[in-house]
């Protein structure tokens, strides 16, 4: 009987904002887009000030997650996904005894890097790194003449290696005698080993980053997972992982391993505010109008609030209540170390197939009720899962500039250039535990903030 833990995904809150399906999408996808848009979260880490000579070109980021959705071409250019290296692993669970409900796990099994229509977490994570095509017919219906756009990624020229190591996102770890499991340490270790083999083989001359928006409340006591991480780092792979969404209970593993660059989540005070209101950003006003539908974009197409620059930015940053704090008592013998923070409160991106939608692969004609040639849905999602790809992408831009950087150099630069976030509290308008309303979030010292909010411009400069 192998000891294994069920791995819980980091995203904790998923709300439907809008969905889309429009046949006209194909006419412009990847051909021309008049506008590309930055977002509040990219502005928050100063992506606009990064030297655009460094966009992550020739850098590979392996997203160890739920794979990418079958219709990923609706969102990404073909060149951005390294399908030739795409891979999947999972480890099915099996009941040994129906009375004791003892479970054992089968061998790690290869599978596709394509996730099912119910597993879009990895697609969303990838979209933060490389950006995504966006069209929202509901916006048109509401009279918003927003043309089809491209939403900027943090490192738009990175190549994503989709490595599926998690099964269906929204199902429990184990569901019945025949068994299905969400994810195991051994499957994750297999994914890391696989990426390491790529680094030692065909990608020997390319910087390679492992981005893991995953985590579980216990470390792998067999040591298999940590050994895989150590092997990857020794091979020159940069390993980034989420701090987890357990808040004060502590960080999740593998993010909590000290050698991993771990990422907590921040939010922005004005994320949901309506700019131009007489009360201004200092007044409590929430907009249900147009701005609401395009709230995450930072462009001149509609009014927006510019994110302040450091050091004033510290007044507008809060630490998400769910962001995992260091807790050295969470699992004795396994110390926790939080490194940096990145935006993760609400990040918009592709999220087809969320419960409520039957999202059918676009190449399969006449499936389901969404029969548009290229349907696509977008959602906003919050969690350290969303913060992690920001850091992975900034690391990619650093590595394009200086491919010789190793794990510890990247971590040191990210930490030394981060914007320190002092202990504090903030009342913000947010979608919290009781729906939309005013919530006060507070946080302590470095156990919640690490070295602070990453600043991409300074990190790339220092690389």
């Amino acid at each position, binding site marked *: 009987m192998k000891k294994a833990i069920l791995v819980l995904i980091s995203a904790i809150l998923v709300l439907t904002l809008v969905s889309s399906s429009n046949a006209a999408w194909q006419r412009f996808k990847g051909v021309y887009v008049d506008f590309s848009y930055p977002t509040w979260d990219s502005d928050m880490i100063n992506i606009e000030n990064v030297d655009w000579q460094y966009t992550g070109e020739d850098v590979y980021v392996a997203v160890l997650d739920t794979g990418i959705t*079958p219709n990923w071409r609706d969102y990404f250019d073909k060149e951005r996904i390294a399908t030739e290296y795409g*891979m999947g692993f999972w480890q099915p669970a099996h009941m040994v005894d129906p009375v004791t409900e003892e479970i054992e796990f089968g061998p790690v099994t290869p599978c596709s890097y394509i996730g099912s229509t119910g597993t879009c977490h990895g697609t969303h994570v990838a979209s933060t790194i490389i950006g995504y095509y966006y069209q929202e017919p509901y916006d048109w219906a509401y009279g918003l003449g927003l043309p089809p756009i491209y939403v900027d990624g943090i490192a738009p020229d990175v190549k994503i290696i989709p490595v599926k190591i998690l099964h269906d996102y929204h199902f429990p770890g184990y569901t019945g005698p025949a068994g299905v499991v969400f994810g195991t340490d051994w499957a994750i270790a297999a994914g890391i080993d696989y990426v390491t083999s790529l680094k030692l083989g065909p990608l020997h001359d390319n910087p390679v980053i492992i981005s893991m928006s995953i985590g579980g409340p216990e470390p792998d006591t067999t040591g298999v997972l940590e050994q895989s991480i150590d092997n990857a780092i020794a091979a020159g792979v940069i390993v980034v992982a989420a701090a987890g969404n357990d808040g004060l209970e502590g960080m999740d593993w593998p993010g909590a391993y000290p050698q991993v660059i771990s990422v907590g989540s921040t939010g922005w005070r004005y994320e949901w505010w309506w700019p131009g209101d007489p009360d201004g950003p200092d007044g409590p006003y929430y907009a249900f109008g147009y701005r609401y539908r395009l709230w995450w974009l930072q462009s001149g197409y509609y009014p927006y609030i510019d994110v302040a620059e450091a050091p004033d930015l510290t007044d507008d940053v809060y630490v998400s209540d769910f962001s995992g704090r260091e807790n050295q008592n969470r699992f004795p013998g396994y110390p926790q170390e939080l490194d940096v923070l990145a935006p993760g409160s609400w990040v918009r991106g592709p999220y087809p197939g969320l419960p409520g939608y039957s999202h059918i692969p676009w190449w399969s004609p006449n499936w389901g009720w969404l029969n548009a040639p290229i349907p696509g849905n977008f959602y906003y999602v919050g969690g350290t899962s969303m913060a992690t790809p920001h850091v992975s992408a900034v690391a990619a831009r650093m590595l394009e500039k200086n491919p010789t950087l190793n794990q510890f150099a990247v971590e040191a630069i990210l930490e030394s250039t981060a914007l320190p976030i002092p202990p504090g509290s903030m009342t913000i308008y947010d979608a919290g535990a009781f729906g939309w309303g005013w919530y006060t979030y507070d946080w302590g010292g470095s156990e919640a903030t690490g070295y602070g909010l990453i600043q991409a411009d300074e990190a790339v400069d220092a690389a």
Partner: protein
Amino acid sequence: MKAVGKLLILCIILFLALILSYPIIPSRAETTVIFLGNHSMIRAPVYGLLSNVYVFGEVQNVGDVPVNLTRVTVTFLDGQGFPIDSISRYTKLNVILPGKTAPFEIAIQDSDERIVDYSFSELTFVATTAKPIKLELLSCNSYLDSGGWMHVGGTVKNIADRNATYVKLIATFYNTTNGKVIGVATDYANEIELEANQTSGFDIQVSGVKVPATASSVVVAESLEFLSEMHSTVLVDRTPPDIVLVAWNPQTPNSTQQVKVNATVVEPSYASGVKNVTLWYKVNDAPFQSISMQKQNEQWTAVIAPQNEGVTVQFFIEAFDKEQNKAVHPSPPYYYTVVNKSTAPPFSPEISIALLVIIVIVAGVLIKYRKKLF
């Protein structure tokens, strides 16, 4: 002697009563699950130096009551036939209704490639009172993704009057040449809970082995709520019918004879069953025209009307099963040429047999009544 006689009569009465009452004595329910012969072993690499071995197969509930917790034990053998390891796994379908099949998949890591064979060591199961919940598969389609992995996607609907949670989809893939099971995919519908009349998409994929695009598949949906006496098995059949035998008579008709075409059309036990069979025929270069074939004792029959002397008649059979899977046979079509009446055989074999039967009957009657007649 009188007492013995009464006792004998009583025994006879009791015996008769027992015989008469037999139909109302409840028969003991049979609970039997058997292995089907379509199992297979496939070795597949994980990556690099790692390798797994998979045994796929099916069991069938040939008893009278539903069973669950059906558990298959496979013993893996080395080249000398010595056991290496034994692994037990439950079938992918939790509750197997009478007559139904359930696939299983047993995997083992074997990077040293010691395993060359396997045997079935054990098959256990438990009778259950599970009742079906009404689920319906509205659509179902299989495809290979860009990585070469087989998916099955579609839409499932809860047509029961109560909620169904964790609707599981199980796809079994068959080698179309030999019928062996070569892959199993299991996953859940996108919706966690399906209310009455609610639909959900699903997209399940095979892991471990790469199933070829030519494989046929069967998909079953099951709600885990069988534990509370709810259960569903809904079949979607992706296997076309098999037109195994076609015969026509007379083989060489003349211009006065109609031609009777018989076809035997079968479906595998797991499939949905033959829905309709059509005879398509054409005379010389005229377009094909159809005749609906009628089912007679497991055979499908149609008649082609007499045709003019010298013409060539081509024909083929088209069959659909209840899931609209289509089979056509043969390709190119069969054909016959209508001959001159004088060159045609005087009697078809059927008429000859019929005459022979009549002669035998008449002869028998004559023998029986010869005394009265003579």
